[in-house]
């Protein structure tokens, strides 16, 4: 007779020892383990890993590293060159938009005034049909 070497509960064992199962599932698995040698063995293996991992002792962050990071962040934030580049870019964008807006509106106004045409759906249609001289 072929010996049973797998158990359907095996997949739940890690969650069981991690306390991730619901109370009902936890009790069900606990009850099963008491009579299943395969699961008992698997639990021992998993706990062996846990014990091994808990041997690790946290090492201190090297002296001055946090301060070095704070300085880097502070330099990035207060770098006058970067600040100037950002300010200049914003000011230039606003100015260009403003000037372009004025030019467009005055040009359009002048054109409509000269040709005595109101801008609307018909005029746009005519424009695309080639009635307008551009």
């Amino acid at each position, binding site marked *: 007779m072929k010996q049973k070497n797998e158990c359907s509960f095996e997949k739940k064992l890690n969650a069981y020892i991690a306390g991730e199962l619901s109370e009902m599932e936890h009790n069900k698995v606990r009850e099963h383990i008491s009579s299943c040698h395969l699961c008992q063995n698997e639990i021992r293996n998993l706990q*062996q890993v846990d014990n091994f991992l808990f041997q690790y002792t946290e090492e201190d962050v090297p002296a001055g590293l946090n301060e070095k990071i704070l300085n880097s962040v502070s330099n990035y934030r207060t770098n006058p060159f970067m600040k100037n580049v950002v300010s200049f870019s914003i000011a230039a964008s606003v100015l260009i938009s403003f000037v372009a807006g004025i030019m467009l509106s005055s040009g359009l106004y002048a054109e409509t005034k000269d040709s005595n045409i109101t801008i609307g759906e018909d005029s746009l249609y005519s424009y695309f049909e080639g009635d307008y001289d551009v």
Partner: protein
Amino acid sequence: MNNNKFEVLLRNESGRLYNYLLKILRNKEDAEDILQETFIAFHKKMNSIKDSSYKSYLFRTAYHKALNLIKKRNAKNKLVTNFPEMEHFADGSTKNNEQQNELVKDALSKLKPEEALLIDLQFYQKMSYKQIAEVLETTQSAVDSKLVRAKKKLIKIITEQKKMQEK
């Protein structure tokens, strides 16, 4: 987020992140560099990150940066073992702790980076499956099955380590 809040977060989390990086990179200088890059990246984006997601963001960022470094190393055909820093651990009064740490680092560095992160988040950061799933942007059942796979690999690695020690 103001600067004081950033500083508090840095001082609270840098130790955990540093140890995580140390375990998977096994190189102090690399761990320091990635830690610094992670916090700078975090600082640039912190205003758009929810308070409850700070830790997830930090670990995810550190993980991806470490992964990139490992890929670069592999591309250069450098093995993750036998770094010069290893010699540093050979002496000192806390030899036992350091030797134990080396065994854990050695074992974790033999896992895939994602598996090492999972193990770190569960064992050292004490995160629940739900929190780990948030960090890795996956499901809780995927976290469980990946953790089981990682632990099974660790069982083999630990057994091999024991055999080596007995020789």
